């Protein structure tokens, strides 16, 4: 299930659409879909990400460190790329776009690490008042009599 994310990460992903004839984009962290901009429901995006990760694990077992998968289907191509724990999949309709798309995805994954971190840890720097306790730096004495007794 895609999580609610900061608009800036979604906006950064939207910009990737200018890299070619892009039909959809999906960004995941490990097995969790962060943004689903595919023309498909979230459960299908989950299936896509799981299959890509499974494929990468399969090849890793044979000592292949795969960083890119590219598949062709009737009328559409799917490009999947990995960077650390992030997976980005793009559906595109022109084969000739693939290498520029791959480069643009690499730059995206490099430039948006902080946005991904913010999406994963939404409360990172914005501390809510409900999560805090007031500090009592000064002892609270009810009256001067109590102060005297303490002395």
């Amino acid at each position: 299930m895609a999580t609610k994310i900061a608009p800036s990460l979604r906006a950064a992903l939207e910009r990737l659409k200018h890299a070619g004839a892009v039909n959809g984009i999906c960004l995941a962290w490990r097995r969790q879909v962060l943004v689903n901009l595919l023309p498909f429901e979230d459960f299908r995006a989950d299936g896509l990400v799981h299959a890509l990760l499974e494929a990468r694990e399969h090849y890793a077992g044979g000592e292949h460190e795969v960083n890119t998968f590219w598949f062709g289907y009737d009328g559409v191509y799917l490009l999947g790329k990995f960077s650390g724990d992030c997976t980005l999949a793009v559906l595109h309709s022109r084969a000739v776009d693939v290498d520029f798309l791959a480069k643009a995805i690499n730059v995206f994954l490099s430039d948006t690490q902080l946005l991904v971190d913010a999406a994963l840890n939404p409360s990172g720097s914005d501390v809510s008042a409900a999560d805090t306790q007031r500090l009592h730096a000064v002892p609270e004495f009810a009256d001067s009599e109590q102060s005297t007794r303490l002395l």
Partner: protein
Amino acid sequence: MSDPTLKQFEFRDGSVTGDTSQEDAKNFAADFQGLRHFGSKIGQALDLGNVWMGAYREADFTHLWTCSVDGQSGSGGMIARHAPLFELFQQVSTDA
């Protein structure tokens, strides 16, 4: 693409032929089968139909194939470098 490390293969009805060693043909066949399996799985997840082309790339290796819809015949190549996918795709498709 005049790269001496490019190895090209053709396959039909389960047998792979190439201009290099039997070991290379065996490796290509294994990668083809694995990649087609995962390509089909992705195709099912998004209801995209049959996969007819597959590729994977590492820092120093690129593998790509194209095949008929039933997967019984096709051609492919592997190259010992991080090669442009479209260039390899064109090469494999042209020579098929």
